[in-house]
């Protein structure tokens, strides 16, 4: 197989320019024009995150190769004036032979050995094997009518985007080739977080991980700087990541794309990858962890759970005096360090939160969200702690009001006082719009709260937040009521719980005007 489709020169990476156009560019051009490019324009969240990680790994290695180490002042300069182009282009030139999508010995992020290995050489899989959004095998789906025996043709650029997302987010599970089961990709079931700048150049500077320690520059290598994977490595024990560069480019599955005569991809070879061993002491730089009932939980996209409820896990803040503390992603710490070095002159830090949630091997949903974090909020730990308290307040109000709503629902069912009835009522509430409505409504007030806490109008912001939570609770209550209908029994339950609802809200949210409450009643 001759070499074909260079990632450096072929246009493959979708990007949004400042004028709103979306174009595809090769890597050389991407780095050259990184100050004109606003952001990556990939629409599939896993691929989007993986593409940013690829660019970060290249940037880190190029800087390491050219400079060895760098100081915070260098990052500030690059942020303002652009990354050193010479270093980046030299690096790409140096490794250009490892950036071919199709290559006989070292295809990019693939394993050429699969073409020769006894276990895989005669087995072809359709490209849907590595597409997180597609069905293959016995996966039951409604709308995807792909047939494994006759896969559609995929352009190389799309195949590459798909491969990148897959390697980062693939869940662990059965592989049945070279090994029975394989470990998950580095970002499995994760809502990955990334600080965004106004341009791609700024984003890369914000999210760049620190320089390797002196003498350790050649330890944390990306996939293209390592020798091509061998079958023995694929069959070996899981290996912990050597650092972010390794994580960002880990070949968690062995794939070999098989080009058709016209350059498209229909088939591939597939096998267990170079398994990633879990290391709780070296979490992924883009993963946040919140405190769950049984220790730290990686923040992911849970069904029906509004993402901002995990905001305290995303914002670095002072440790609680007791108990477990949530862990913000390392990549945010890097961004804040840069803001600190620039004396917090940039008012807002937009965050991209994107990823794929899975349960075992079942892929559940993918999402991409964005949040704007005022930098002043994180510059002072007390303000960050105040934000944590206010998000906790939203949770507490929800808990208390949901408790009352369960009582109200139970009162409309036969035998309202029995435990079973309450369980049924709780199930009714959980399946209804109550929780989603409450948090969706409260979310609208969140930007104002964050801006207020970051600025000088803290008291007004807190009062407005409490008012918003009250309105959200009342609306959610109304949603629960609508589900009950208007039978006299439902009316009675509502009437009995209505005063308690207000009493609870008054207790939880003391900063409100009683006049407003009366009008609402």
């Amino acid at each position: 197989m001759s070499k074909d489709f260079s990632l450096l020169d072929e246009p493959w990476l979708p990007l949004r320019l400042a004028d709103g156009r979306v174009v595809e560019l090769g890597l050389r051009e991407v780095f050259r024009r990184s100050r004109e490019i606003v952001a990556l324009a990939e629409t599939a969240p896993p691929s989007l995150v993986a593409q940013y990680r690829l660019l970060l790994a290249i940037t880190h290695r190029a800087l390491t190769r050219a400079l060895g180490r760098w100081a915070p002042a260098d990052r500030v300069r690059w942020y303002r004036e652009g990354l050193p182009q010479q270093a980046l282009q030299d690096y790409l030139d140096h490794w250009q032979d490892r950036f071919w999508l199709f290559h006989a010995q070292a295809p990019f992020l693939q394993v050429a050995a699969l073409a020769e290995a006894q276990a895989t050489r005669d087995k072809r899989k359709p490209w849907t094997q590595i597409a997180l959004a597609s069905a293959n095998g016995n996966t039951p789906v409604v709308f995807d009518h792909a047939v494994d025996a006759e896969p559609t043709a995929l352009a190389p650029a799309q195949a590459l985007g798909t491969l990148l997302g897959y390697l980062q987010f693939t869940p662990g599970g059965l592989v049945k080739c070279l090994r029975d089961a394989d470990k998950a990709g580095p970002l499995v079931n994760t809502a990955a977080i990334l600080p965004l700048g106004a341009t791609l150049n700024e984003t890369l500077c914000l999210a760049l991980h620190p320089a390797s320690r002196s003498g350790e520059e050649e330890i944390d290598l990306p996939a293209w700087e390592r020798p091509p994977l061998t079958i023995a490595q694929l069959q070996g024990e899981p290996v912990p990541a050597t650092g972010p560069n390794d994580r960002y480019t880990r070949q968690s599955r062995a794939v070999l794309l098989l080009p058709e005569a016209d350059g498209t991809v229909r088939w591939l070879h597939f096998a267990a990858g170079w398994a990633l061993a879990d290391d709780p002491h070296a979490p992924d730089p883009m993963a946040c962890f919140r405190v769950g009932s049984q220790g730290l939980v990686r923040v992911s996209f849970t069904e029906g759970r509004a993402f901002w409820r995990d905001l305290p896990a995303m914002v670095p803040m002072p440790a609680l005096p007791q108990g477990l503390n949530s862990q913000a992603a390392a990549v945010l710490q890097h961004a804040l360090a840069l803001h600190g070095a620039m004396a917090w002159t940039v008012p807002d830090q937009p965050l991209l939160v994107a990823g794929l949630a899975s349960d075992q091997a079942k892929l559940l949903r993918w999402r991409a969200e964005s949040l704007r974090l005022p930098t002043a909020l994180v510059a002072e730990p007390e303000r960050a702690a105040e934000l944590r308290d206010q998000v906790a307040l939203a949770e507490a109000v929800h808990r208390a009001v949901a408790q009352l709503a369960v009582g109200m629902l139970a009162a409309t069912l036969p035998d309202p006082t029995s435990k079973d009835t309450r369980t049924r009522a709780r199930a009714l509430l959980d399946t209804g719009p109550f929780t989603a409505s409450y948090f969706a409504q409260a979310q609208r007030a969140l930007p104002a709260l964050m801006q207020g806490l970051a600025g000088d109008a803290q008291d007004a912001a807190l009062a407005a937040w409490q008012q918003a939570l009250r309105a959200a609770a009342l609306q959610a209550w109304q949603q629960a009521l609508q589900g009950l209908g208007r039978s006299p029994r439902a009316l009675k339950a509502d009437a009995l719980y209505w005063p308690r609802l207000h009493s609870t809200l008054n207790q939880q949210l003391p900063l409100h005007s009683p006049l407003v409450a009366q009008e609402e009643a």
Partner: protein
Amino acid sequence: MSEYTQAFIDHLTRLAEKNADRGALAALRHSLAFPPGRYPKAYPYVERFVPPEWHAEDGRRLALYAVAGLWARHPSSRGASLAASFGELMRLRDNAPSIEQRFIALLGADAEGVMDHLRQAIGLLAAEGLGLDYARFLSDLQVWLSSSEAYAGHTDQLDRIRQRWARDFYRAQQGPAAPATETIDHTDLAQ
């Protein structure tokens, strides 16, 4: 509550206050034996409040006759809604379940049947000497006695009235010392 509603209640009040027209109160009281708006002897006292564009079965017209009849039965006004007064009645009668059952039946009644329940309810309030806010009662009844096809949003409006009545009733029934908080069980509701 419109000025128009209040003007009608004022008109009824004058009929009773002056005691000038005993025949009026008697005729209106007697009209309760008929469906609202069907007793000709009540026409002189009510019909002048019916705008010409309302047809005979318009819920708003029917409500004027219904309220006039009920007022004549128990001419006592105060700033409490009918539901609140009824809740108070239940409290005064040691929370007799029969009062609640009557109220529940009233809440569940449609335009056809609601008058039967209201006659009984007003009778009970009269016996206990508990007045009510007739102007508000008239506004509510104008919705209640309209057919659901009368105008868009009628059903929602009626639902809100029923909800308000229920809240008024139970708040008054529990009195000023209603329990402030729900017993909390600590099952985690958060998702």
